[in-house]
């Protein structure tokens, strides 16, 4: 039973973490309520002004390519960095093994 003691303690700790998260969820506003504080200012402004600012119906796409286009540039840089990192690791493996 000795190897199972750390696992049992871990399960108890994770259960406590889950209960803590559920206690925080009880304090949150109801999901789906149209008067939530998340829906008040910025989202209404984007929904109202997407038509005259960008002339495109899809508001999510006009957020990521017009209002917040700089974030999408950062994300393209993340994709580029991931490819560079993976190709570096795999090429170093190949040349290292040949040596």
């Amino acid at each position, binding site marked *: 039973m000795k190897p199972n003691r750390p*696992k049992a303690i*871990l*399960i108890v700790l*994770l*259960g406590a*973490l*889950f209960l803590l*998260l*559920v206690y925080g*969820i*009880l304090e*949150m506003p*109801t*999901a*789906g*309520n*149209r008067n*939530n504080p*998340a*829906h008040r200012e*910025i*989202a209404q402004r*984007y*929904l*109202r002004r*997407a*038509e005259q600012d960008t002339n495109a*119906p*899809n*508001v*999510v796409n006009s*957020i*990521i390519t017009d209002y*917040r286009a700089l*974030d*999408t540039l*950062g*994300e393209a840089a*993340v*994709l580029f*960095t*991931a490819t560079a*990192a*993976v190709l570096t*690791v*795999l090429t*170093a*493996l190949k040349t290292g*093994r040949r040596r």
Partner: protein
Amino acid sequence: MWSTLLNQINYVGAAALFVIGLYMVLTQSNLIKKIIGINIMETAVCLFFVTVGFVREARVPIVSFSDPALLYVNPLPSALILTGIVVAVSITVYALSLVVGIHAAYGTIELDEILEIQAREHHD
């Protein structure tokens, strides 16, 4: 209390997925399972964030130019999570390439055996 929890079942599901992912990272010794656990945790956070933007009985945020007073789902969390999903994919692919390197160096991907091999090499 149970009816409020049933209304926020998405958040409870996201919290459960997060705890399951954390359990997988902490206890499994196979490296691929640890990476799957990290991916599950990131999916849980994405689910939590997108549910914040949900509005009941509202339509998809594709505005129709004719009728300005309709009710739309909040578009902002979906737009922010797109970047989050791409970052999750990038982290997964980098971690998998590191696992390929570890397999080439040690011949195994179980963490217990790797630590044993390292302890033996340290002794010699």
